[in-house]
């Protein structure tokens, strides 16, 4: 499986950066992005002059939702970068689409060091309005194609929590998972967050706390939902020969999963209980000799706890509908367990950094910077994943 065939094998993450993450920032989204970007560039032992490409997902949304307020153009100008290539678009295998594009740009000989970033400003946006609403009052909903939200329009589909529960409730029905088992995801991540000074919510929660928390839409409770924040993450993806010159041991991108094999639609999705994850995971494993048993740690998407539950199964850490037993009691996924999962608290407790928090945490742990939450065993292989519904992307990261 050579780098000439599999472009990701010639790429590595060489530096990471993150702004302060908060429930309401005094800084603008662009300033937060600059903080993350400069930290990542310096972490990789580089200067602005070394960055020859930038990529982000889904690009500047040009609205007040806070979902993606900063795109390539604003960051390029703020940092006065001189680039050979740039890309910021939303139709991609979830948030990691930007990384996959960076791999392509490196493989094409366009770039050596790509700055990949993701910025969210939803905490501030929500103070002004229910900004995340999927419904825009007073205007007819467009998007009539296969993936379009217009098909949800008249049905009071106000939020992703409500709409994605169509997947989660099907999963509950098929798997028989119980609330006290589902709870282990948020309990574990809150425990991890209590050891992470940068996390938003750091007070541990109990099973009683979970069971007594407000219901959102069946089967979701409030603790199953990620936390809107203001914050930005940046990572540097470098060509392997360049990566080897840096101060950090390269975190190699061993394999990716990026495929679109299901009906790519929020309403017509033909894999409701698993979401579009199984074939994406299958593709990732087909591009490496490593196996699920070789994975030391998992940083799994957790926009909702069920995404994490799904990924545990679809990556093959346990069988389909067996996650309920795998996570029972929370021991296996704890910092001391066989598969420490979402070790920084994840989006549920550290904040909705939208999958790039997971990459940042993977590198933090692989480079031994985890502080009180550092996993004690030797760490080399991390599985990481993004997105739900029809969107899914996966990466296997390796530090040799």
């Amino acid at each position, binding site marked *: 499986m050579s780098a000439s065939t599999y472009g990701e094998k010639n790429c590595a993450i060489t530096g990471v950066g993150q702004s302060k993450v908060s429930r309401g920032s005094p800084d603008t989204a662009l300033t937060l992005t600059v903080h993350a970007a400069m930290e990542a560039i310096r972490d990789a032992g580089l200067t602005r002059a070394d960055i020859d490409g930038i990529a982000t997902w889904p690009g500047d949304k040009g609205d007040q939702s806070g979902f993606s307020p900063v795109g390539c153009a604003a960051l390029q100008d703020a940092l006065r970068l001189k680039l050979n290539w740039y890309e910021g678009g939303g139709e991609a295998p979830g948030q990691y689409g930007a990384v996959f594009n960076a791999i392509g740009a490196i493989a094409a000989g366009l770039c050596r060091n790509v700055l990949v970033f993701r910025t969210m400003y939803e905490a501030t946006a929500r103070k002004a309005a229910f900004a995340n609403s999927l419904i825009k009052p007073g205007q007819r909903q467009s998007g009539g194609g296969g993936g379009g939200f217009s098909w949800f329009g008249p049905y009071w589909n106000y939020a992703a929590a409500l709409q994605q529960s169509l997947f989660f409730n*099907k999963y509950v029905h098929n798997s028989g998972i119980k609330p006290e088992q589902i709870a282990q995801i948020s309990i574990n991540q809150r425990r991890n967050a209590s050891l992470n000074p940068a996390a938003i919510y750091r007070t541990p929660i109990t099973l009683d706390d979970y069971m007594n928390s407000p219901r959102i*839409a069946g089967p979701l409770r409030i603790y199953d939902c990620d936390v809107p924040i203001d914050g930005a993450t940046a990572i540097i993806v470098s060509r392997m020969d360049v990566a080897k010159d840096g101060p950090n041991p390269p975190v190699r991108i061993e394999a990716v999963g990026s495929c679109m094999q299901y009906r790519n639609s929020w309403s017509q999705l033909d894999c409701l209980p698993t979401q579009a994850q199984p074939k994406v995971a299958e593709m990732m494993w087909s591009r490496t000799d490593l196996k699920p048993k070789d994975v030391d740690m998992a940083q799994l998407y957790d926009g909702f706890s069920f995404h994490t539950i799904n990924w545990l199964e679809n990556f093959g850490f346990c069988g389909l509908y067996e996650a309920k037993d795998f996570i029972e009691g929370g021991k296996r996924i704890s910092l001391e367990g066989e598969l420490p999962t979402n070790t920084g608290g994840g989006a549920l407790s550290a904040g909705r950094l939208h999958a790039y928090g997971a990459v940042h945490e993977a590198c933090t742990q692989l480079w031994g910077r985890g502080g009180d939450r550092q996993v004690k065993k030797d760490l080399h292989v991390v599985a990481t994943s993004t997105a739900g519904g029809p969107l899914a992307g996966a990466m296997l990261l390796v530090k040799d």
Partner: protein
Amino acid sequence: MPNGASTITPPGAPARALPVVDYDSEAYWKGGADGRLHIYRCQDCKYFVHPPVRFCPKCEGLNVEPEATSGKGFITSFTINYKQWVPGLPDKFVLAIVRIAEQDDVQLVTNIVNCDPDTVTMDMPVKVVFEQHEDLFVPFFEPEANR
């Protein structure tokens, strides 16, 4: 009130956000004026095509036209909403994906109405019911047992 339309949304409840309707989706959103649910169907191989497009992914035929269906279906998945996202929502309501009786892979997003949300179950048989909003006849589904 036109044939088949009824009142579903309670007084004081939030407005229904309406979709942009185009040449292909018109049959779905306006066809309910005659009390029936219209879905695109390949006239050559009889495959239902939804969301509507004048191309059949089974036989590659272009002869695709709207057809009235039985209006019956089954609940493929659903969720009961509890959160008051905006003022005026019922304490509970059901968002669902219904597959039509004629073909499993035609999945319609809808609310299950005219019943206690707690009585809704997976695979429950349901039947279409329309509510008029402006020029559209919005399809909802109620338990088939209601009829």
